[in-house]
C-alpha cells in the first residue's frame, strides 16, 4: 500500500478458545492478557512504552479459532514492531505475581461483560445452540476455572499451540518485504518449531441443535428475539458468500425484507440485524431483533412468515441490491492497513490466502437460482431460537 502513512504488523495463531481442554476454560484469552506482562528481555510494560513512544499502539483479540496480536504504527515504526512483537508474543515470562494481578483484571472483564444483559443473552444462545461444542463455551471462560489456572498450565497451553505451522504473519503498509522477512526471521519467529502431531486439536464439526427457548433476565429493558442457524465452515468461502447475500437481503438497510416489514411497516422492532460469523468448524448466522415485551408474540409470527416466505421467491432487484451493498462494503473495508493485515493474516493462518478481490468474483457467481436454493436453510424451524424477556 504505497501511499500508506501507517503500517500494521499482525501475528496470528490457531490458539483460540476452541483449543482449550475442559479444565482450560478461559486460558486462551487469559494468555493473551499475560503476553503483555513481560517477556524474555522485555520488562512488564516495556513493549507498550516503546511502541507508544514512536506513536504506535498495539492490541490483541482472542476468538474461538484463533488469537491475533497487532501493532499499528506510523510507517517508520515497522522495524521496531518486527523486533518487539514476536519477542513479546513468543517468549512470555508468565511471572507468578503478574499472573495473580492479571487474573483479577480478567475476572473484572468477565464481571463487566456479565453486567450487560445483552451479552448474557447472546452467550446463552450459543450454549443452547452449540451444546458441548467449543463454540458454546464463553471465550472469557468460567469463573471457577479462571480462579484455578496456574502459570504452568498456561505455559503448557502456549507451548502446544503457538507453533510455526499454526501461525501466520501479515504486514500491510509501505515497506521492503525482503527487509521485513529478514528481520522477522532473525527473531523468535525464525526459530519457532512446528507442532507435535499429537498436539493438534480435533475439535470436530459443529452440529447445531435447533429448538425453542426462553430466558428471563434482570435489568433487561427491551425484549430480544434471537435466532441462530448453522452455516458452512469458513473454508467453504463460496457457499458462505451465498449466506452473506441472504443476510444482506434480509436485514441490511431500510429496504431489506426484515427491516422494511418489521420496522418500517409494522413498527414491531427497534432494530433487526443479521450477521454471519465465519468459523472454522461451522459458521453461525445470528438474527437479533430488539423489541418491546408486548410486541414479541406478534413479532414472532411475522418473522416466521417472512423467513418462510424466502422460499416463495427472491426478486432479481433484491439480489442486485445485496450484491452492490456487499461489493462496496468490501471495497470500503480495505482502506486501512489494519483491515488489510487482518484479512491477509487470517487467510494465511487458515491456509487459504486469496487475492484481495476474490470476494468480488465469488459474488458474481451467485445467480438468482443458486440463491433461491439456499432459502430453505433459513426456515425458522432450522434455527435455535431464544426469546429474552425481563425477569
Amino acid at each position, binding site marked *: 500500500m504505497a501511499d*500508506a*502513512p*501507517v503500517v500494521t504488523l499482525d501475528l496470528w495463531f490457531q490458539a483460540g478458545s476452541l483449543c482449550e481442554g475442559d479444565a482450560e476454560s478461559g486460558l486462551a484469552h487469559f494468555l493473551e492478557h499475560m503476553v*503483555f*506482562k513481560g517477556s524474555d528481555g522485555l520488562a512488564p*510494560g516495556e513493549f*507498550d512504552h516503546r511502541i*507508544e*513512544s*514512536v*506513536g*504506535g*499502539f*498495539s492490541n490483541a483479540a482472542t476468538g474461538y479459532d484463533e488469537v491475533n496480536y497487532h501493532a*499499528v*504504527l*506510523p510507517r517508520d515504526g515497522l522495524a521496531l514492531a518486527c523486533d518487539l512483537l514476536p519477542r513479546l508474543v513468543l517468549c512470555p515470562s508468565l511471572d507468578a505475581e503478574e499472573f495473580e*494481578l492479571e*487474573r*483479577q*483484571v*480478567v*475476572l*473484572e*472483564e468477565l*464481571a*463487566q461483560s*456479565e*453486567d*450487560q*444483559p*445483552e451479552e448474557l443473552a447472546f452467550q446463552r444462545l450459543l450454549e443452547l445452540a452449540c451444546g458441548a461444542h467449543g463454540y458454546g463455551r464463553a471465550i472469557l471462560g468460567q469463573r471457577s476455572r479462571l480462579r484455578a489456572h496456574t502459570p504452568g498450565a498456561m505455559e503448557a497451553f502456549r507451548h502446544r499451540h503457538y507453533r510455526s505451522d499454526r501461525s501466520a504473519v501479515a504486514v500491510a503498509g509501505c515497506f521492503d518485504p525482503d527487509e521485513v522477512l529478514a528481520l522477522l526471521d532473525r527473531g523468535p519467529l525464525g526459530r519457532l518449531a512446528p507442532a507435535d502431531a499429537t498436539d493438534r486439536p480435533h475439535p470436530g464439526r459443529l452440529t447445531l441443535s435447533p429448538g425453542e427457548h426462553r430466558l428471563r433476565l*434482570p*435489568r*433487561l*429493558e*427491551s425484549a430480544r428475539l434471537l435466532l441462530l442457524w448453522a452455516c458452512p465452515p469458513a473454508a467453504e468461502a463460496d457457499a458462505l458468500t451465498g449466506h452473506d447475500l441472504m443476510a444482506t437481503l434480509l436485514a*441490511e*438497510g*431500510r*429496504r*431489506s425484507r426484515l427491516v422494511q416489514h418489521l420496522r*418500517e411497516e409494522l*413498527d414491531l422492532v*427497534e432494530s433487526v440485524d443479521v450477521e454471519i460469523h465465519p468459523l472454522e468448524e461451522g459458521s453461525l448466522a445470528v438474527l437479533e431483533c*430488539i423489541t*418491546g415485551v408486548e410486541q414479541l408474540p406478534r413479532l414472532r409470527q411475522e418473522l416466521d412468515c417472512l423467513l418462510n416466505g424466502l422460499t416463495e421467491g427472491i426478486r432479481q*432487484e433484491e439480489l*442486485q*441490491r445485496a*450484491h*452492490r*451493498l*456487499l461489493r*462496496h462494503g468490501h*471495497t*470500503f473495508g480495505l*482502506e*486501512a*492497513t489494519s483491515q488489510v493485515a487482518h484479512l491477509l493474516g487470517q487467510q494465511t493462518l487458515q491456509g487459504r490466502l486469496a487475492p484481495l478481490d476474490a470476494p468480488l468474483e465469488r459474488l458474481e457467481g451467485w445467480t438468482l437460482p443458486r440463491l433461491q436454493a439456499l432459502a430453505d436453510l433459513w426456515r425458522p424451524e432450522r434455527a435455535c431460537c431464544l426469546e429474552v424477556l425481563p425477569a
Partner: protein
Amino acid sequence: MTRFELLHRPGAPTLAARLVLPLGSRQDPGGAAGRQQLLAGVLTRGCGDLGAEAVADLVENRGAQLRCEAGDDLLVLALRCAGDDADQLLPLLLTMAEAPRLEGAQVERERHLNLQTLQRLQEDPFHRCHERLRRQLYGQGPYGHDPLGVASDLAAISADALSVAARDLPTGDAVLVLAGDPPPGLIEAITTRFAGWRAPSPPGRPLEPPAADPLKTVELDTEQAVVMVGFRTVPLSHPDLLPLRLLQVHLAVGMSSRLFQQLREERGLAYEIGVDLSARQEASPCLWYLSTGAPRLAEAIDALEAEWQRVLTLPLSDDELALARAKLRGQDCLSSETASQRADRLALLLGHGLPADHNERALARLEQLEPEDLRAAANRWLTQPMLSVCGPGRALARVRPLAPAPPR
C-alpha cells in the same frame, strides 16, 4: 459563507462526503431535549421529490452508506459511495438540508425508534453513570443529556417544532468536504448550489451552571460499580485545550498510560479504564472512568482521587511528557489514514470554526509546552470534580465526595 473543500485523490474508486452544520443537540430548546437528533434522523426519511422509500432505494441500490446524526455541537450528514454513483447521490445531501419532507408518519416512526433506544440504553451501567454525570456537569441545558434526548421531552416534540427547526438547516455556516475524485461538472453544480446557502445559524444556547452537589449515585443490581469523575473544562478554541489533551493522553491513552499502569497493571482494579476529553464549542467535558467489582469500590475511588491530586500537585517528568507528545503525534498520523477519516477530520475542524491547519499548529506548539504548563492548566480546569457512581446499594452507601483540590 458556506465552506467547500475537496481532498482530491485522482482515480479514487470511492467518494466520501461530509456535510457539517452547527446544529447539534446544543440547539435543543428547553423542554425539547432530543429535537436535533430527531430532525437528523428524519432527514433520511424523505426530501425533495423523494419519499422515504425512494431515498432508501436510491442509496441502498447503489450499495452506498448514508447516515445523519446530531452530536453535541454539530449535525453531520455522512455519505460514502462508489465514485461512479456520486452524480446520483451527492446532490441528495444538499436536498436533505434544503427540502426535507418531514412527513408525519416518518416523524412518528423516528420518534418511536429513538424512544425505544433510550429505554434500551438504560441496560448499560456505563450509560446510566454517564447520563447522571452529564446532568451534574451541565444541568438541564446544552450538553446535559445524550443527543437522543430525554424521553418525556422527546415524546412531546411537535411536528411543527421540527419544521421550524428545519428552516435553519441550509445555513451559511455549513461545511462540505469531499474526498475522492468527483467529476468537475458535479463539483461545479454542487458548489454553485451550496454557495446559495446564506442564512446565519442560530446562536448556541448558553450553558447552565453545574449542579451544587458534587456526588450522585444510581443504584443498580450489578456485580461491578461504575465510577465517573467529570470536570468542565475549556472550549475547543482555548489555548489550554492542548495541555489538557496532553494530560489526557498521559493518563489514559495506550497501555503505557499512567492510569492503566497504576490501577490496572499494578493493582488489578479494573479491566476498562479511561479518560475522555471531547472537544466542544464551550466547556468541554473531561471524564475519568472505570468499573470495578463492588467490594473494591472504595479502593478504586481512592486510587482515582490520588491520581487526580497527583496531576494537580506534581508536574510530569520529562520522560512522561516526551511519551505523551509522541502519542499525540502518533494519534494524529493514525487517525488520518483513510479518505473517510481525513474528510471527517477536516469537516469537523471547519465545522467547529477552527482553521484547516489547526492540528498542525497544535503539534508545532507541543514542543513549547513544559511540565509546569500542564500542571497549571490542570489547576485552572480540573479543580471542581463531580462524582457519579452506579452500582449495588450496599457498595454505594459508603461513597463520599472527592476531597477538595489541594491548594496550589
